[in-house]
């Protein structure tokens, strides 16, 4: 197990190198001059040129890349052009709300999806299955920003039971306030994933219920409920673990839109603002962190899978 983890972590190095090159190229090859953006239209050509020189923007691109990566190894992820704070602090400040939102959204989607998927599978073809199937169809097709706005109109404007926007950190305002402000965003973010996971759960449970070992369990005299919970679910969960990992990543990137709608100062908002300001070092750092997050989530999913399925040995 330990060996496997070490091996997996080591195998991440080439992935991260490629990712860093891609990020770097994407940002540096897009048109637009950060120095010009910073100084504004009034600044003279010479002022802009001086700033470019001092920012290292005139160095060959390879030198710039090496400089950036070298910095990362010293814990220096670059400096923001606009914010007077070290990069790690900027990211840490913004990543909290995003992670909170993502986990909350994932929990909501699982709480909705697992029971719905299981019920739909057990009652296949019956009205329950059809209702769930219609809802998941709708859930997949409604974009999160639209859902967010609808939720705001319904729950904040009309019913006035949940706040329409903003963010309260746990440390300052306590858990309940935190949750109160995140509920609408998490629902609008999580519903699409809930729909996807529902479908996945349904088909996975259906497949397992049709397998020989379920028949065998029945032939042993095991009760239907126990068959479902003990024999079927454990097996049906295996493919669902992978889907949940993918959902987590999808939620993480989907958070950008929802953070904008609900004005949550998360990573998504940071990216949007940085793109508008062409604060490219921030963008670079954030995208790298998100890529890293992806990779870590995938590793965790693989480990969980290995633990849940005895046929896979983590050696």
């Amino acid at each position, binding site marked *: 197990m330990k060996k496997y983890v070490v091996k997996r972590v080591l195998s991440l190095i080439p992935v991260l190198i490629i990712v860093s090159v891609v990020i770097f190229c994407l940002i540096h090859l897009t048109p637009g001059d950060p120095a010009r953006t910073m100084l504004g239209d009034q600044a003279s050509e010479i002022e802009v040129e001086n700033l470019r020189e001092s920012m290292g923007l005139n160095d060959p691109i390879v030198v710039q890349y090496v400089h950036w990566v070298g910095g990362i190894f010293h814990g220096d992820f670059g400096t923001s052009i606009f914010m007077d704070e070290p990069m790690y602090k900027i990211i840490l400040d913004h990543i909290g709300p995003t992670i909170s939102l993502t986990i909350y959204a994932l929990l909501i989607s699982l709480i909705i999806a697992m029971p719905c998927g299981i019920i739909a599978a057990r009652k296949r073809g019956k009205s329950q299955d059809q209702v769930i199937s219609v809802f998941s169809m709708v859930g997949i097709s409604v974009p999160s920003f639209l859902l967010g706005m609808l939720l705001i109109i319904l729950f904040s404007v009309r019913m006035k039971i949940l706040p329409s926007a903003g963010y309260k950190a746990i440390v300052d305002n306590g858990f309940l306030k935190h949750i109160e402000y995140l509920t609408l965003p998490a629902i609008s973010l999580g519903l699409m994933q809930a729909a996807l996971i529902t479908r996945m759960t349904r088909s996975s449970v259906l497949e397992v219920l049709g397998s020989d070992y379920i*028949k065998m369990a029945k032939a*042993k005299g095991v009760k239907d409920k126990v068959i479902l919970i003990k024999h079927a679910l454990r097996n049906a969960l295996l493919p669902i673990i992978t889907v949940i990992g993918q959902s987590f990543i999808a939620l993480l990137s989907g958070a950008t839109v929802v953070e904008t709608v609900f004005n949550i100062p998360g990573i998504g908002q940071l990216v949007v603002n940085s793109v508008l300001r062409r604060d490219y070092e921030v963008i670079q750092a954030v995208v790298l962190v998100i890529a890293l997050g992806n990779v870590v989530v995938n590793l965790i999913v693989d480990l969980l899978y290995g633990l849940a399925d005895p046929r896979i040995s983590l050696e």
Partner: protein
Amino acid sequence: MAEQEKILEVKKLTTSFKTERGKMNAVQGVSFYVNKGEILGVVGESGCGKSVTAQSILRLYDEKYLVEYQGEILFDGVDLLEIPEKEMQNKRGKDISMVFQDALSALNPVFTVGEQIMEPLMNHQHMKKEEARKRAVEMLRLVGIPAPEKRVSQYPHELSGGMRQRVMIAIALSCNPRLLIADEPTTALDVTIQAQIIDLIVELNFKMHMGVILITHDLAVVAETCKRVIVMYLGQTVEEADVNDIFDHPMHPYTNGLIESIPLLEDKGVKRLHTISGMVPLLNQIPKGCRFAPRCPYATERCHREMPEFVNADGRHKVRCFYPIGLE
């Protein structure tokens, strides 16, 4: 011979599946019985309804969505088709057990061998975990698995095919059932292992004195292990007789074809192996009269029109044919 006590008697069992194209009778009017302590052979081509018959006895198919049963399945005099599902659960794995064809897919991949043997023990015999575990080890030893203490905590994928089949037999026998249904228990195995598993079933049948329904498409196995045999064709029983009788004087043209198609080791020379001509019709193209008529060399106009009944032809020999071979 004195009348023996029947442990199971199936009367005119019909199992129909609800499919998109309507109801399909996979098994229609199947009747047979099993005596206490006896091994009954069930033979027939692939798709003739052997597994459906077996699984109907345990009522394994989903009755809400999939099937409809008709007829009677008397186990110890109680009609299994009449009792509530709860009572049926109590009989499955305790009074009647089943061994499936493919042990790899019939064992749950995420539980250890021990856990799977212990489950019916804890359910039906209310054993505590420790006791059930001890019994599981005993069962593994009984079915001839070496180093049972070690095997008990292994997963199915860590065992060989033969051992997995033994594990399944151990599960089936753990609660001392009075009837064991073995549905082609050896088809997925090597020839040498096949013989071992069949020997094991015969040995345990003798030791535990339980009735056995041995489903196979291998007539040679039937000849070696069973005293009585039923032959199925396209969802019906077409012949039932003592094994000796059926090999000496098969009455149904289909059985006759089956027997002639067995390669005999003593046969020297270039005698060509007999095959039954024609294909098994699909369930939705079942002929109106005798189901074997399209392939039968003796078929007459009556055969195409009328369905023969399954009747006593000669002593304990039953056959479903208007013109049984050897009877005028």
